[in-house]
């Protein structure tokens, strides 16, 4: 394996790697602003300059400079090695790079940092990036000095609305052009570009347009400073109060890996951030997915409903028992509806209830209707676990809801036990059809059409409140960690299925998540609980995650 040396440490590199990419693979951090592993190289920030030693026998490439010599009180000519940008310089076998161990590199980094801060506004107290800002981190690590400029910093437009999701502050911008490249290369919509030059440089939206493609929040995500801010997250929370949970986006079947940032003090989620997973979503997430964190809180079913009225869980369970009386005499009259919105654990619990205890074999699947997809990340299937549900009940493939309604019309069923709240058919049709049945129980996290149509609805935890596994459209099983504490009266879906079973008189005594997994073990999904995919977690060099104050990691606990 070909290797290069960085500060005396040998690291391997692959064909075509630049120094910074080889270092990134090895976990070495070379400070940078404009480089991003998922974007093309711009090499305009000059922060990643490193000293590359000449090959043996060759002279170093050096520059003639004048250095001030205090002892002689005059400028003296000197030679200084020419530093190379690590993001652009390709690796060659045996190359020796000095990053931390070269005084020229230290001086260069300090100088670049000084330059970037020359006209920077004193915005830290009001800037959202504070706490995850590279300017702050690199100043303390590499500069630690006051700037030498005594003029008034230049003033540029602040709080420029680029589009419905992004606000731009030109004074904070260091013109690294990451946002320009994201729009052009990721979203395939080159709507942003750079105007003016020198210290007047700023990012601008193409005339007559808005920043309105599907990946605008990625521009905010890659911005290393607080120049681009998301109008959704602006001024809502300070990042050092936020903890991050490693979750899976629930917006569509792509199953992008995400961090859900929440404040444990008030149990509220504040934003999503993409998590690196080269197999699924590389470094990115779409806007719809980024904003889908709100579904942990919005439109939730927080207490049990009996006939549309609030009730306690116990009352709802006993009402369910009454309504479902007589199901055991003819199990074929019970229809089971699984949910492509819920995790494998919830669906498995319902399948177990159906097949093992009730003896009901008619499975259907509900979920959100198809939506708009694209060739970049978004899938048309807006449900995170469709394949999971299909694979779960592979012997009796679940059928779509439309067939259930047809069957109800034909009088095939008296009871429906369902998971989930979404329906891909017309809500009123479903309501009319289900109203004809003797008992309809749904275990739902949101107050959607199915929950409204059901006779009894039990409040389930949303994805953010419980550990769960989801199978994305590629068939990869992914685990989502628990972030929030359950809201209202919500309980995990599998727990509600078990309690419903016990209310109906069956001995389904699952109490902990471990019980569910033990039961699932023969299935192919249980091994999802060893981390799969390249889960770089919170240490991705391209993205500084908020720091915890030394508190225990958000290791998801098994909730009893």
């Amino acid at each position: 394996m070909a290797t290069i040396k960085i500060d005396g440490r040998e690291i391997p590199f692959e064909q075509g790697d630049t120094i910074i990419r080889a270092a990134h693979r090895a976990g070495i951090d070379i400070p940078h602003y404009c480089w991003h592993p998922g974007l093309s190289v711009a090499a305009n920030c000059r922060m990643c300059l490193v000293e590359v030693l000449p090959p043996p026998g060759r002279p170093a490439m050096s520059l003639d400079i004048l250095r001030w010599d205090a002892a002689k009180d005059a400028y003296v000519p000197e030679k200084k090695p020419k530093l190379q940008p690590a993001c652009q310089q390709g690796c060659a076998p045996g190359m020796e790079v000095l990053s931390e161990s070269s005084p020229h590199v230290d001086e260069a980094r300090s100088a670049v940092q000084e330059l970037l801060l020359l006209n920077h506004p004193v915005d830290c107290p009001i800037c959202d990036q504070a706490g995850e800002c590279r300017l702050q981190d690199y100043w303390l690590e590499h500069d630690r000095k006051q700037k030498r400029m005594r003029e008034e910093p230049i003033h540029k437009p602040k709080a420029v609305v680029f589009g419905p999701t992004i606000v731009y502050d030109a004074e904070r911008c260091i013109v690294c052009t990451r946002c320009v490249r994201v729009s052009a290369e990721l979203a395939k919509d080159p709507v942003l570009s750079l105007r003016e030059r020198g210290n007047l440089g700023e990012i601008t939206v193409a005339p007559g347009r808005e920043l309105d493609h599907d990946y605008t929040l990625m521009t905010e995500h890659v911005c290393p400073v607080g120049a681009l801010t998301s109008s959704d997250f602006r001024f809502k929370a300070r990042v050092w109060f936020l903890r991050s949970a490693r979750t899976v986006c629930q917006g569509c079947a792509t199953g992008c890996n995400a961090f859900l940032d929440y404040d444990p003090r008030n149990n509220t989620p504040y934003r999503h951030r993409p998590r690196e997973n080269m197999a699924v979503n590389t470094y990115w997430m779409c806007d719809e997915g980024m904003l889908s964190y709100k579904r942990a809180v919005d439109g939730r079913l927080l207490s049990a409903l009996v006939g549309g009225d609030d009730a306690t869980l116990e009352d709802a369970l006993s009402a369910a028992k009454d309504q479902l009386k007589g199901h055991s005499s003819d199990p074929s009259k019970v229809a089971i509806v699984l949910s492509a919105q819920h995790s494998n654990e919830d669906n498995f619990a319902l399948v177990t209830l159906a097949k093992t205890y009730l003896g009901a074999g008619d499975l259907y699947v509900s979920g959100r209707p198809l939506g708009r997809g694209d060739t970049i990340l978004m899938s048309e299937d807006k449900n995170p676990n469709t394949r999971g549900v299909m694979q779960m009940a592979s012997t009796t493939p679940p059928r779509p809801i439309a067939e259930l309604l047809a069957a109800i019309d034909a009088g095939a069923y008296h009871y429906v036990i369902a998971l989930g709240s979404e329906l891909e058919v017309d809500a009123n049709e479903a309501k009319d059809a289900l109203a004809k049945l003797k008992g309809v129980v749904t275990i739902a996290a949101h107050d959607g059409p199915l929950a409204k149509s059901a006779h009894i609805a039990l409040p389930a935890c949303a994805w953010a409140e419980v550990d769960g596994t989801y199978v994305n459209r590629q068939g990869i099983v992914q685990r989502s960690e628990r972030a929030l504490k359950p809201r209202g009266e919500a309980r995990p879906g599998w727990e509600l299925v078990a309690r419903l079973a016990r209310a109906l008189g069956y001995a389904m005594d699952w109490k902990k998540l471990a019980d569910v997994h033990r039961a699932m073990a023969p299935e192919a999904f249980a091994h999802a609980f060893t981390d799969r995919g390249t889960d770089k977690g919170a240490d991705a060099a391209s993205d500084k995650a908020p720091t915890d104050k030394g508190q225990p990691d958000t290791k998801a606990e098994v909730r009893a």
Partner: protein
Amino acid sequence: MSQKVLDLLQAKLGSGVVETHSQFGDDTAVIEPARWREAALFLRDDPRLAMNMFVDLCAVDYLAMNVEPRFEVVCHLRSLQHAHRVRIKARVGAEDGTEAELDSLVPVWRGADWFERETFDMMGIVFRGHPDLRRILMYPEFVGHPLRKDYPADKIQPLVEFREGTQGKLAPFGPDEGMSFGRQTHDYSRGEN
């Protein structure tokens, strides 16, 4: 602190010394828990070491760093004659906090008495052979070991409950308004998650 102490300790105990390090001017030896008492006696009795001053004994809970064993019992010693110091440590305890047991050093230095009681009280480490291992800083009815990382910092276990209806801060505006005592001024937790 002294490197010489570490060398002699390693020579005597061999594999009983798990590792040694010197950091910030301090010398530390990590001792196998089974040979804790033996190491202590050696440190006290060997004339080249003569550690006759018992300085400190405490414990550190490494739960947040996900290491096993979970606790480290740390003991600092000094010699009056030689004026050198050493820190010896022993790692005990499973992740859930059980199996945290170690031999008591009270038979070796009488000064270890209250320090071990405090370590037991705060961290839950049981010292075998301690003459009187009971709580020292907390009251006897207290449940749990407060300095452990999984004990929440805002949990209270009052023996006398706060008075009814005294949540939140009450400004004493007059003789009838507000109470200056018995009121709950902070949203403590009683331990339910």
